[in-house]
């Protein structure tokens, strides 16, 4: 039988092969299972670290029930009186009374005759910069444009000073006087999402409130003074 003879004949195989087969030790291959386990563990650890870091980041300030930041919890925040230098009195664009009326009627602003409450103001020092952030609520007395009359809205203002001089980071400015008169005519717009970096943390106006206060006018509910011209509130109402 050929196979049998071949089996017998194989006795004469190369000496090196016999030594090899006697002393062969399988070289340890890289275990893909082990690599996968290590990779999975690494991902898990990284995920935990990321979650921790993210949570740590979020926990740097408190969020209120409305999901907005409680400005008093901002790191480095110092609560101050609203009568202190808080609100930037920038004039912005000045129109003729007629143009002002036309612009306000046609743009996306919100106009309220109302009364401010729960005013909170802080300052945060960041190097040469000092940030002033104010949040307050406005009880709507007369919904003149783009707001529900029965509502109370939350508004904010942000100002920045550098060495006691106004610093127009983000081109936002507010000219409000709730420290003198809480009731008045408020010009508001949707709070912008532009980010400002304060002590390494990024904030935007919409993180504090839904509305950004552009201007407050002294008003008796019927008319207000615009650079010496009396404008009827009714002229600003939405059509």
């Amino acid at each position, binding site marked *: 039988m050929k*196979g*049998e*003879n*071949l*089996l017998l004949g194989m*006795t004469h*195989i190369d000496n090196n*092969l016999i030594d*090899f087969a006697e002393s*062969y030790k399988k070289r340890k291959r890289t275990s893909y299972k082990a690599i996968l386990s290590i990779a999975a563990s690494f991902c898990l650890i990284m995920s935990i670290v990321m979650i921790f870091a993210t949570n740590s980041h979020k926990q740097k300030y408190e969020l209120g029930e409305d999901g907005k930041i409680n400005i008093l919890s901002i790191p480095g925040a110092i609560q101050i009186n609203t009568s202190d230098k808080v609100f930037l009195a920038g004039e912005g664009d000045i129109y003729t009374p007629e143009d002002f009326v036309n612009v306000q009627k046609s743009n996306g602003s919100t106009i309220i005759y109302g009364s401010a409450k729960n005013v909170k103001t802080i300052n945060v020092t960041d190097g040469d910069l000092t940030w002033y952030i104010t949040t307050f609520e406005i009880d709507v007395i007369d919904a003149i444009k783009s707001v529900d009359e029965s509502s109370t809205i939350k508004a904010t203002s942000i100002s920045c000073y550098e060495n006691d001089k106004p610093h127009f980071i983000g081109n936002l400015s507010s000219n409000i006087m709730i420290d003198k008169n809480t009731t008045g005519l408020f010009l508001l717009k949707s709070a912008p999402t532009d980010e400002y970096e304060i002590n390494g943390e990024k904030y935007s106006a919409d993180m504090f409130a839904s509305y950004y206060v552009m201007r407050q006018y002294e008003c008796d509910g019927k008319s207000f003074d615009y650079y010496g011209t009396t404008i009827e509130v009714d002229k600003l109402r939405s059509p």
Partner: protein
Amino acid sequence: MLNDKQIVNLYFERNEEGIRQTSLKYGFRLRNIAKGILNNDEEVEECENNTYIQAWNLIPPNDPSDYFFPFLAKIIRHICLDVCKKNRSKKRYVQYIELSKELEECLSSPNDVDEQIDYIELCKTISNFLNTQTDEKKFIFLRRYWFFDNICEIAKKAELSESKVKATLHRLRNELKIYLQKEGYVL
């Protein structure tokens, strides 16, 4: 423990201490080869003793000091296979036949031309074939057809699954058949 050269010198000096030293150094490994083929302690011991006697008779004139273990391993394998062939009724003979049949797959001629084959030359060709294979494949083939290991044992030693070992052996037999044909063994 003496080195191979020193042990072989004892054979040349016709010093029986050579056999004792051989047994001391290689007895265990030789018995393992015999066990793989016979699996019977009495027969294994007898084959081991016969191996030493045959080595005693072969040295001199042979000087296997550079390949002493393979020299002894070949002797004990040959003796064990002779025993296996003689005891055809025993269980181990079944494996012997099984392996013979597996190897026969590598040879495609009818049995009647068998006597014309120079099996020593053929083994050189098989050695060359094995030397072209990876260590793992080489190991599997040799453990199966030289050391008579069963599939389970090979799988354990090679840290592979039994199915992988079987598949490797099947492929190797096919490759060997083609190799032998290319080398002129149209058997």
